[in-house]
């Protein structure tokens, strides 16, 4: 199975809250597993389930109206603990893209290392996305990594705003990795000789 990411068009799950920390994404008590698999089951565990393991009906992941491969979160998404398990859990739950107006640094790196694409949009565009999903949960959002574009569909009603799209940033190196399914370790291993030479220059 290729890990590469290119174009993703999907409906989205809206989680309109700021400062979603990685303890919410995957609580610490689920970090005892020593493999990378199966974390999706406990994604947002304490927001999704009551203490008796019954689903919380008002939480968006329990609402069949919302589904898709794109998770949309509020500003400062993924803050807190460095646990990569957060990225694993989101990916394992079937998401390929996370959209926010602001990502915490470590989470962003972790996501990229797992072929989960973090798309940073402006505050205004984020509001547009939330509004579009609220109006129509079947709204399809298109993400194109090659052109670094995220788009909402054209709206035929002339009284309303038309199609909207925005460019997003990603560094060229990471973009190449994601488009081709390369990872950083392959790259670093390929320059181990240079690293060894570099070591002699250190005191």
């Amino acid at each position, binding site marked *: 199975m290729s890990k590469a990411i290119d174009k993703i068009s999907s409906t989205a799950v809206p989680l309109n809250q700021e400062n979603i920390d990685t303890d919410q994404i995957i609580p610490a008590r689920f970090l*005892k597993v020593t493999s990378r698999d199966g974390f999706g089951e406990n994604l947002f565990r304490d927001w999704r389930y009551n203490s008796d393991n019954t689903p919380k009906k008002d939480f968006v992941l329990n609402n069949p109206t919302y589904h898709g491969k794109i998770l949309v979160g509020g500003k400062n998404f993924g803050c807190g603990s460095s646990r990569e398990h957060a990225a694993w859990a989101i990916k394992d739950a079937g998401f390929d893209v996370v959209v926010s107006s602001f990502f915490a640094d470590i989470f962003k790196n972790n996501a990229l290392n797992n072929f989960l694409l973090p798309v940073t949009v402006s505050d205004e565009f984020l509001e547009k996305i939330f509004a579009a999903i609220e109006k129509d949960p079947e709204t399809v959002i298109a993400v194109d990594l090659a052109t670094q574009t995220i788009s909402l569909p054209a709206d035929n009603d002339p009284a309303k705003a038309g199609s909207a799209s925005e460019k997003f940033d990603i560094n060229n190196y990471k973009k190449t990795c994601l488009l081709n399914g390369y990872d950083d370790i392959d790259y670093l291993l390929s320059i181990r000789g240079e690293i060894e030479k570099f070591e002699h220059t250190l005191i």
Partner: protein
Amino acid sequence: MPKTIFEKIWDRHVVRTIEGGPSVLYIDKHLIHEVTSPQAFKGLENRGVEVFRPKQIVATADHNVPTINQHLPIKEELSRIQVQQLVDNCKKHHVELYGLGHPYQGIVHVIGPELGITQPGMTIVCGDSHTSTHGAFGAIAFGIGTSEVEMVMATQCLLQSKPKLMRINVDGDLHNGVLSKDIILYIIAQISASGATGYFVEYAGSAIRNLSMEGRMTICNMSIEMGARGGMIAPDETTFAYLKGRPFAPQGAEWDKKLDYWKTLYSDKDARFDKEINIDAANIEPMITYGTNPGMGIGVTGHIPAQNEIDEKEQPAYMKSLTYMGLQAGASIKGKKVDYVFIGSCTNSRIEDLRLVASFVKGRKKADHVEVWIVPGSKQVEQQAIEEGIDKVFEAAGFNLRQPGCSACLAMNEDKIPAGKYCISTSNRNFEGRQGPNARTLLASPLTAAAAAITGEVTDIRELI
């Protein structure tokens, strides 16, 4: 060209820079623990690659260890397997492990400094966001994810983009009863839980200079709580005096050579920062948090912001947070009854913290309804506390001195705060469920926590000293 301390260290460690991309950054020290390393070891084995520089890795078990009866096998199966896997992996890959039972075992960010492993000018990483702690020695230290742990194991390098630089100057004298924890909680309350995202922070100014190494570590530790990639403080005589004679600190001629280098590690006079913030130490009072991120903090005599003091857009999240905490907007926090007191974590579990708490509680007793857990940061801290008779002071006060580990900071082991209960905690995060499902955390300094242990409620420590 004038350089910041960050740039001096960064530039020395860049192996190469990818055009339009990140730099290959060489890592001097890699600290690992049981929770974020097993998948990295496994990844390495799947690739058929050996650990590149095992001597530059140090391992300990901390996140998931019990804090009582550490000599017995760990009861919980998954925890036992995880800790055992660290033992097996370290043995197989020739990595030094200070595991359970070892006199050097403890919280990874406590043992690195106390053993002299952490030194100025180094690049240090660990699969833990509080790795920023080590920046207190004038090192570039930051947390990484497990894929990056694997990268460093495989090549001793990481791909990193150079962050923006921020300097926070704290000048003036601190009021009596105000600790370094209050400084950092104050800063985060000022700039918010995301106020330093994308930046690496240098802390400077007279109030920072006057801090002990333990105090400086507390500040750098919480850099991540405002989103910073890391925090650092230029090394000085305080740093050198702390390091000298520690087990892994350089000795003899090597010490002199290193010292000459370390003395060049400061930000040059005209070095450029992308952002600079000035703080008057006199404005800081003992701090406490009331919400569910570390930026939601106030002075202990202050009031929780009223709903209309909050930006309209942020009001729903704000009210949700207060509902979780069971607190009222606009109310004062002083006098709020607490159920648990936790003194520990990589933020505040060092010997200085325990000494300070002991000197305050000596001759006092805890409030009847409060449970008090003191969890030392390492075996060495625990041992020192016993040698100094601090354990007896705690016992007399009704405090429960436990064994080293991360404990109720993240409640991965059995040290959990029950649902709905209030815990005043010297740790670093007050996120929902952080100390156990539906637990309510109030972050504070060791002295403010100790005062609450005695009175049973949120207290202004200044009234008791």
